[in-house]
């Protein structure tokens, strides 16, 4: 056996490095995707509330956008980075109205990859304004 193979100096460092490159990405995956799911839930909840409000106001009103921005901000989401679609923009009594939100959540896993996860939420309500 050669002297190099028998020499175990630095072996602990090598093994620790190997372990860290596997364990750290796993830990960060749990944290990052957990955070993404939490944000998705918050965005879904804001979408449902906005759909109800849009139905109450009869369409895409500035008040709905303002309400949505406040709901998102309260959930720790930057509303400027969320695209909002309210269709149709004006509804009558008993007509369905759909509110859709779309955002991108950045996920970064050390040693593996960095990407963005698309988060989409939609809810349908019904117009309550008798025009």
């Amino acid at each position: 056996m050669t002297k190099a193979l028998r020499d175990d100096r630095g072996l602990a460092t090598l093994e620790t490095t190997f372990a860290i490159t596997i364990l750290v990405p796993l830990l960060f995956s749990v944290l990052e995707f957990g955070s993404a799911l939490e944000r998705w839930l918050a965005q879904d909840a804001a979408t449902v509330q906005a759909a109800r409000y849009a139905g109450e106001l009869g369409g895409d009103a500035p008040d709905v956008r303002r309400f949505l921005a406040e709901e998102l901000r309260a959930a720790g989401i930057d509303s400027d980075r969320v695209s909002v679609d309210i269709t149709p923009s004006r509804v009558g009594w008993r007509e369905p109205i759909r509110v859709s939100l779309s955002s991108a959540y950045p996920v970064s896993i050390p040693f593996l990859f960095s990407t963005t996860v698309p988060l989409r939420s939609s809810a349908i309500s019904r117009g309550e304004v008798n025009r």
Partner: protein
Amino acid sequence: MSRSWVQDDRGSVMVLTLVVAPLLLVALAGVLQLGALRVAAARIRAAADLATLVAVNDQDDAELARSGALRLSSDAVDVAREYFARELGLSSPLLDRPSDEIAMAADVAAYPSAPAYDTRTGARYDRPTVRIAAEVPVRTPVFGALALRPVTMLHVLATSSPR
């Protein structure tokens, strides 16, 4: 002194990591699937809540004008079922069955006047109420790959009354 391979602990951390890493990966996959299931459960709950709310908002205008009393519209059950299907349709990739089918199988009940007792839950309603009780099959492919159930059945119960 010469050591046998049993006594030699060089590389043991590497071996341990290689053994533990697949277990941790499985745990990670399970955690992510549980998270996705939680999102699906929240969406289904919101779908049922919104459907009952829409149905409850549909009041009998003639009765309201005549007596001032809140009374559900005669089509409240159909409206609740229709909107439950619409809301579930937005999450159709998560579901194991078509949203229309799930909504048709749901137990939707309207109690147009109060007080009323729910025939399913025994709850007393002091206002006109719409109730949805449904079993929604959600795809859980990671659980399936881990020899668990590939489809998880979520039970949802939602009631709404006007104020």
